């Protein structure tokens, strides 16, 4: 499967190119999340994937931390549901 790369800019203005893994949605909370990778592989072949929240800022989306453990648990539940389909 072809890699889809996106560029993200952190708050220090540093640009990073990461691989887009997935965009997921929590319909109940009307939240969207970006799942991406920095191509970091573990010894067992697993890939480290990152999840950030897409929040609206000045008519566009920006990425934000997922700060609440409850929200994080919910995201993992959504991911689990997706991969179980």
């Amino acid at each position, binding site marked *: 499967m072809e890699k889809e790369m996106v560029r993200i800019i952190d708050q220090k203005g540093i640009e990073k190119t990461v691989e887009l893994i997935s965009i997921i949605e929590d319909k109940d909370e009307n939240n969207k999340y970006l799942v991406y990778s920095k191509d970091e592989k573990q010894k*067992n072949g697993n890939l480290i*994937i*990152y999840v*950030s929240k897409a929040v609206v800022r000045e008519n566009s989306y*920006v990425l934000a931390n997922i700060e609440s453990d409850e929200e994080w648990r919910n995201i993992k539940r959504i991911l689990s549901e997706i991969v179980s389909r």
Partner: protein
Amino acid sequence: MNNYSNPLVTYDEIVEALTAIINYSKANGYIEEYGFLNAKYDSINTSPLQKEQEEALLQALQSLEKTIIEANKGIRKQLEQALEVITSENIFKIKSLYEQNQELRKLSSNPDLVIKLKEMSLPLEVLNKVEKNDQTKKETLVDDLSKIDISKIQLIKTALEKARKSGNEELANTLEKQLLKELEKLD
């Protein structure tokens, strides 16, 4: 349990042993959750356990997984309930960590599941335009880390304004250069 195949070990003893393994794993930060028993158990980063302990724990977890998976359907269900776990054929490690200084949430994912996530992804275009509902949504996260490059020029402009307001000239200059570069691309 009368129908358990090993008469030398009682069902309650098995549950007790497996619960101990899970509790020990959790107490040592080795696993955060135990929703998926087919998970990979390698630690994402430095484990607080010594190597020997970690290996022993890994074996214990694998035995636990094997015990449940190989149990007949009735026993398996009861074990799941007793241990408060859910077995699944999916291999997806559930372990979250804060990346130092960045507090990013991350997971370890089997390559097959990465493919599955890609297949099931919403199109990138959903982040290109803001829906009206989203605009009115209360924003609680102020100090976000990063921005997606979808409307890059707008993002740089916003960051530039912030940098200027905060008096961070060095960042402002960098962003100004980036902005000019992006504008040049439009020409």
